[in-house]
């Protein structure tokens, strides 16, 4: 699939990284330490109503900049330089943007490897739909439809349509949701979206229960709803091929102070929660989106024959070789060694000839050694590390494998002694015969 293409771009990345990587932890960070984030709102009240979320970001060292979507001075870039490392789009109703920002520029922002958080809400604008759609997330066509779940809603005296969902089916990934995850259900009130199953870049982080459906509570249904059951995704994340990360939530109020501190009781269950899981969920997932977790990089890819350490330009079949690579994870501040037991390398030519799990020293150094197959050709060391919630590592290094040279074959084989002896006896015989024949009389 994307192998070659990605391989190429990655190899170039490696070139860059090799420059950086001294392999130790004193790697100069190649990610900004105090990322600047533009928060686009269509109503400054959001600053207050969602202040807790923003506060948590600010505490983590992000420099937030609030702008109205209608602000005529809006710009993501100036003179080709991106002004921000991340973009938070908390303006569900924004039809248009001021200044130089439009859908295309926002998508370019993502395609330049930067991150985006997008929160929708009932009555979201076409513009936002388009952006979400470009990221592989399809919101319910009916803009008045909300997610309704008569079996899994949070009991509150203001909610008269069971649209305040208490969702607790999270994606099983500590990389995305942190070690603890969210211990309380997450409150959700908003619009449903779905993700094409074929799309393996988008992950459903928070999905609805089997009894949920998306409809307009005011009107009676006269047909099965377009979205229903577990196929409804409430919160999804996209990790683009260039590792840009996008968070798309069907509910803006999921991030609001109100929901953060909302004490509630889930319908049917006796346990009532002091506060919802929203705050934790929002903070953890924002950590992921802004690459504080699950961002890997591989450096110092190296391979050599057992014995001598410098990297040859070509191997011979049945050589014994060693392969090593260092993998680090970005913590938001530094690169710390990444430790996992499932990193694998392939020795690949059209199909993997050897696929081996690397063993590591706990300091991020992964190594293995194996014997080159007795097949010649142009092989690749392919390290293809694709784990849920982690940036994809796809590194391939090309190395030709040549057959034996004419003088590398086995000689003086015991099994062939008779042949040797006889041919030599022939030589001797010839010599003798020559003498005898010539001088006989």
């Amino acid at each position, binding site marked *: 699939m994307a192998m070659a293409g990605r391989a190429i771009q990655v190899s170039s990345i490696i070139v860059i990284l090799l420059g950086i990587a001294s392999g130790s932890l004193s790697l100069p960070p190649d990610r900004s330490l105090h990322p600047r984030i533009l928060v686009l709102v269509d109503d400054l009240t959001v600053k207050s109503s969602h202040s807790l979320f923003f506060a948590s970001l600010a505490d983590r060292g992000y420099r937030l900049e609030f702008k109205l979507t209608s602000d005529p001075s809006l710009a993501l870039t100036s003179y080709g330089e991106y002004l921000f490392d991340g973009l938070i789009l908390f303006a569900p109703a924004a039809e248009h943007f001021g200044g130089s920002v439009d859908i295309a520029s926002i998508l370019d922002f993502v395609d330049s490897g930067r991150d985006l958080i997008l929160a929708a809400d009932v009555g979201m604008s076409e513009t936002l739909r388009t952006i979400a759609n470009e990221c592989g997330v399809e919101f319910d066509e009916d803009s008045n439809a909300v997610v309704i779940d008569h079996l899994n809603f949070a009991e509150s005296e203001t909610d008269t349509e069971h649209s305040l969902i208490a969702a607790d089916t999270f994606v099983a990934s500590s990389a995305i949701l942190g070690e603890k995850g969210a211990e309380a259900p997450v409150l959700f009130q908003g619009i449903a979206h779905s993700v094409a199953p074929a799309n393996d870049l988008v992950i459903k982080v928070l999905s609805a229960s089997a009894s949920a459906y998306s409809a307009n509570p005011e009107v009676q249904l006269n047909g099965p709803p377009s979205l229903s059951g577990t196929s409804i995704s409430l919160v999804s994340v996209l990790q683009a091929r260039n590792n840009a990360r996008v968070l798309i939530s069907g509910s803006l109020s999921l991030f609001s102070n109100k929901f953060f501190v909302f004490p509630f009781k889930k319908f049917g269950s006796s346990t009532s929660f002091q506060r919802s899981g929203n705050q934790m969920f929002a903070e953890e997932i924002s950590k992921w989106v802004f690459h504080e977790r699950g961002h890997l990089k591989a450096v110092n890819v190296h391979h050599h024959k057992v014995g001598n350490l410098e990297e040859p330009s070509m191997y011979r079949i049945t050589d014994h070789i060693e392969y090593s690579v260092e993998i680090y994870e970005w913590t938001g501040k530094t690169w710390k060694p990444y430790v996992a037991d499932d990193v694998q390398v392939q020795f690949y030519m059209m199909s993997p000839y050897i696929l081996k799990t690397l063993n590591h020293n706990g300091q991020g150094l992964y190594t293995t050694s194996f014997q080159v197959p007795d097949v010649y050709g142009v092989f690749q060391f392919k390290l293809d590390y694709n784990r849920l919630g982690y940036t994809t590592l796809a590194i391939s290094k090309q190395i030709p494998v040549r057959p034996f040279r004419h003088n590398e074959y086995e*000689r003086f084989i015991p*099994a062939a002694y008779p042949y040797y002896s006889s*041919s030599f006896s022939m030589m001797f015989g*010839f010599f003798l015969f020559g003498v*005898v024949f010539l001088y006989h009389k």
Partner: protein
Amino acid sequence: MAGAAGDVKALFSSLKSAYVATPTKLKIIDLYVFYALCTAVIQVVYMALVGSFPFNAFLSGFLSCVGTAVLAVCLRMQVNPKNKEFKELSLERAFADFVLANLVLHLVIMNFLG
């Protein structure tokens, strides 16, 4: 049947008598050829036993024997006084060719022996 056997016996006796007449030099050659062929046969047997693994070695070994034999036969033909075709060809000239041929042959064999 017995008649046939008798005939065969007679045949061989006559062959023998005819062969005794041949000069020693030719006999030497014959001996030489015989010796080469024996070696060849032994190798073939060996190959049949253990399979043709170092095939190049076998080939060279075998062909060196056969080659020697063939060259010797050529020599024999050339120096055979009974042979009308080679009146104008002296024994020594033939021998020189023979030596050259053998040297070449063995060079090649050595190269191929691996």
